[in-house]
């Protein structure tokens, strides 16, 4: 897997409606960035490892997102599947600086 460069700007926060997510492509990777209702951001891989579902289209709360295709549920901080399925997504730490979303760190 390619590494996503730390510090790179992946998009603008005003592209994401509150409570929803949008997918951004960066360095050939796709990252779904969620803008929670409390204003904070979460970022994970955009593609569900189960059958390729678009996670940015999933329903989310402040902890998890539910894949719209088959209901697999991922913790947006750890990337693990909360129903106990043996799959996970990568999660990324992100920050906002003057409206720009930047990756600050990523799990392996």
């Amino acid at each position, binding site marked *: 897997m390619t590494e996503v460069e730390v510090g790179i700007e992946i998009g603008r926060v005003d592209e994401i409606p509150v409570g929803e997510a949008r997918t951004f492509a960066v360095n050939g990777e796709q990252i779904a960035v969620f803008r929670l209702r409390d204003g904070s951001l979460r970022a994970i891989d955009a593609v569900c490892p189960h059958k390729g579902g*678009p996670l940015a289209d999933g*329903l989310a709360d402040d*902890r998890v997102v539910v894949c719209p295709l088959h209901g697999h549920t991922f913790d947006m901080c750890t990337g693990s599947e909360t129903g106990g399925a043996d799959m996970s997504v990568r999660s990324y730490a992100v920050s906002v600086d003057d409206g720009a979303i930047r990756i600050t760190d990523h799990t392996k």
Partner: protein
Amino acid sequence: MRQKLIVVGNGMAGVRAIEEVLMRGGAEKFDITVFGDEPYGNYNRILLSNVLAGSQEIEAADSEIFLNGLDWYAENGIDLRAGVRVVRIDSFARVVYADDGSATRYEKLILATGSRSFFPPIAGLWADDKTLTDGVFGFRTLDDCVAMISQSADRSKAVVIGGGLLGLEAARGLQSRGLAVDVVHAAPTLMNAQLDDTAGAILRRSVEDIGIAVHVEKVTTEVVTENGRLSSIVFSDGTSIDCDMLVIAAGIRPNVGLAQRAGLTVERAIVVDDHMRSIDDDNIYVVGECAQHRGQVYGLVAPLWEQATVLADHITNTDRTAAYHGSRTATKLKVAGVDVAAMGLKAPELPDDEFVQYSEPRHGVYKTIVIRDGKLIGATLVGDVSKVSFLTQAFDSGLPLPDERVSLMFDIGTPDVAVGVAELSDDAQVCNCNGVSKGTLVACVQAGETSVTGVMAKTKAGKGCGSCKELVGQIVEWAAGGAVTEDPSASWYVPGIPYDKPTLMQLIRELKLHSVSSVFAALAPDGKEDANSKMALASLLEMMWADEFVDERDARFINDRVHANIQRDGTFSVVPQMKGGVTNSWQLRRIAEVADKYAIPMIKLTGGQRIDLLGVRKEDLPAVWADLDMPSGYAYGKSFRTVKTCVGTDFCRYGLGDSTALGIALEERYQGLASPAKMKLAVTGCPRNCAEALCKDLGVVAVGDGRWEIYVGGAAGAHIRKGDLLATVDDPETVITLTGRFLQYYRENANWLERTYAFVPRVGIEKLRGVVVDDTDGLAEGLDARMQKSIDAYRDPWQDGREPVTEGQFRPSLPLLPLPQVPVR
């Protein structure tokens, strides 16, 4: 150092054996070479009948006929010698010689040479030693099949010799290609290997009914040609039949010549031990139709899978004790349009064997069951195979049988429950959607999860269509041995808010909560939002507040955010409204133009009498809607979907009421209403019920003299249920009023995702009749008023296309990666 493994035979058995070997790390242990005398990769011989019948294309992009393409061999480092025939095996020097002059050494050899067509001795059958006479075909290989298809165009009358499964399939296939077809069978009974005389006679009648003539007890002695072209065949009794095409499907014979010449023991086929090795040579394994195990030779595919597993365990040293003990064979197939299932014995053999028989020749239904010592040892089903799953399971695993033997043949009550969860075998599949077996559920309970909802969440059982939920619940209860944790959340309307539906609605009303976020803030523990509660809450609030509902799109499921149904590849389906299933040339032209302009990969008629455009990209949705210029058909939501109608009185000779007009009126009035689950309706113009109104959430049937019956709680999806008669009324206006009142009562009282087929029996039809028809509880006025409020708030959601309501509403969520593609037909 890797060993050389040679596989002779590139058919389903040989390749399955290789796949099993590879799965056990075989690529590290072996260099694999495969010889196959057909010039193809591995293909599915079972589908040849479909190829002949034209229902399976060989060339199509999605063709299922090829199981392993040539690239599969390359990817797995397998040396495929396609079109090369092995002519000799030297088992002492461990070398195989092929007809291309090559000699290849092996350490291990797998023989999977399969079978060939059996050609009975008939004068004039062969043009020379290797070539069949003009117009004569075997039916075994892809080449046979292709040759028949290409010849069928200029032949008109075919005879199939052999009234077994393959012969009947060949006959049906040729008939569908426009030929007149006769079947000639040497025995008195069709499919006599599987069926007894009565069943065979019923099958014969069904075959004759579709226009295939059947001649039994006829032995063909001669094939006659005129000027080199096939003209007729002659029987031993002197009679004859004219024909210009002849298919020989008189059985198969294992290909054993190679093994015989190598000095291996061959009886009916190559004799093997329990490890699937030749009894003469530990380095030679045999699998499939050319193997004889404990006196049995199998011609079906299921035993072959089992043999391949044992072989692979043994040859790779994964499990040297792996042993094959023979297979119980059960077949289920469609012969010439008739469903047939057969397993085990066809008739009793011992004096104490129980034999249960049911025969209804007029309708082509016949069933027999043979029971010994309380265990099912044989069954035959013709015409109605609805009980085949249970019977197969009972046959395979020796389940105890119900005392009422008749329930083995017919569904009496609910069969799944009657079986008793204790008796289900561990590998019995409970949830077909997500492939969850009873064993998995039990393991989950044993691992400490004792609530039904917990087990469902962990295993995903019941999370597909939901039709197995009841059974899942029973299994969990049984596995927990009465220690089921009462899940307090079971009565909550949504998992994240601790109230049942009446309390939740009362609080929402009292606190005037108009948005999903306000409900979480006010009513959820610690104000925590919950992703899995959002969709249900949004629906509930829309139902309660109508135009006062504050629609936060992040609380909506993706289908409701973009007003289209998400598909497995992330594209969407678009179904424009077509009220009552009535359309016109303007709409059709629009749809056709849109389909061309946006290169729609599939246009499909739906079950609800509309047209579905599948494979639309999310970003194209607004433009597609604009070009269609038709309102949404709501084929994506938990909402009022559609009203199916028949042609009613306008054209139908039998119509008793104008069902089309009434259906359109219902759809116009109640279109798009949010509800706890889908609402599908139908109106039909006479009791012939062409619009299938008896199995709809609400169905209306014209019964003459201007009267209409209203049925509620019907279903014909994951569950089948005939609706209950709610009322019989005198005019269409009353139908419309009562429909609205029923739908509103359902919307306000049903649990989330509870379809009417569950809601109606839960509440009871008498209670519903009281509320909706007789107004015994005085609720009617309020229900009607609240329904009217929802109707007044209707807005076509496809107007979002003109002005997106959120930033990037239609922006693709997966822009880059090639996803698993849905095959385009």
